[in-house]
């Protein structure tokens, strides 16, 4: 199988979450190529990243969010590109998930889920864009 890259730009609005999911999981074949458990991981990662970008990236929402899906024989990768304020979510301290109820808040849980469920997560600043790239490795075919 050849490597392919497809991208689409959406308004960075939570109303488009269904559209992001359909583009990545259905139109681009994640559901066909990955085991159900990994599709579920990808589903969680997509929501967490999109919610973050739509909530925080733009001072005057909504901006734009470009999704680039890269398929290769080895991996299924998704890059999220926004031109909001520079922000590297991987720099944020991970929450201490061993604390008791009274000391817990929900901050940082989204990106923690992304880090634990994806095989790779990379942030880079590309000119005026934030790039967050997540990778799910494809199971080896027999």
């Amino acid at each position: 199988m050849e490597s392919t890259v497809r991208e689409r730009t959406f308004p960075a609005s939570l109303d488009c979450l269904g559209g992001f999911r359909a583009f990545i999981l259905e139109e681009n074949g994640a559901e066909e190529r990955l085991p159900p458990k990994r599709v579920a991981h990808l589903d969680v990662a997509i929501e967490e990243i999109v919610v973050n970008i739509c909530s925080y990236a733009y001072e005057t929402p909504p901006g734009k969010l470009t999704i680039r899906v890269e398929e290769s024989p080895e991996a299924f990768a998704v890059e999220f590109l926004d031109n909001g304020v520079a922000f590297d979510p991987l720099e944020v301290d991970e929450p201490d998930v061993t604390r008791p109820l009274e000391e817990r808040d929900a901050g940082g849980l989204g990106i923690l889920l992304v880090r634990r469920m994806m095989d790779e997560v990379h942030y880079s600043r590309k000119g005026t864009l934030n790039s967050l790239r997540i990778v799910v490795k494809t199971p080896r075919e027999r």
Partner: protein
Amino acid sequence: MFEMKIAVESWGRDVSLTGRLDAGSAPDFEKEAIAAVDAAGESVHFVLDFTNLEYISSAGLRSILVLAKRLAPSGGKVVLCGMSGVVEEVIGVSGFDSFLPVAGSRGDALRIVGAV
């Protein structure tokens, strides 16, 4: 798709969740759950049955945290049961299973809240 059914019991509320508890549905869940706490007007426990819950994200976790914090001062518990798949993983990664009781079965959940 998300649905919740809330049954009123002597010990509190027996809640079964179906579908996706995500950024879209979590605010509705939170609103209904908190309204149920207010309506009870006394110390109540919540059993959240996740048997038919397919998906949960951090938005769902946040709404459960709000509920648990609301109940805690009066000694009310949130007990989880019926978890599997990605829902169980999300609860585990977030450490919510360290401060909320997780029951292996629905029967165990009802025992924890003193229903049986």
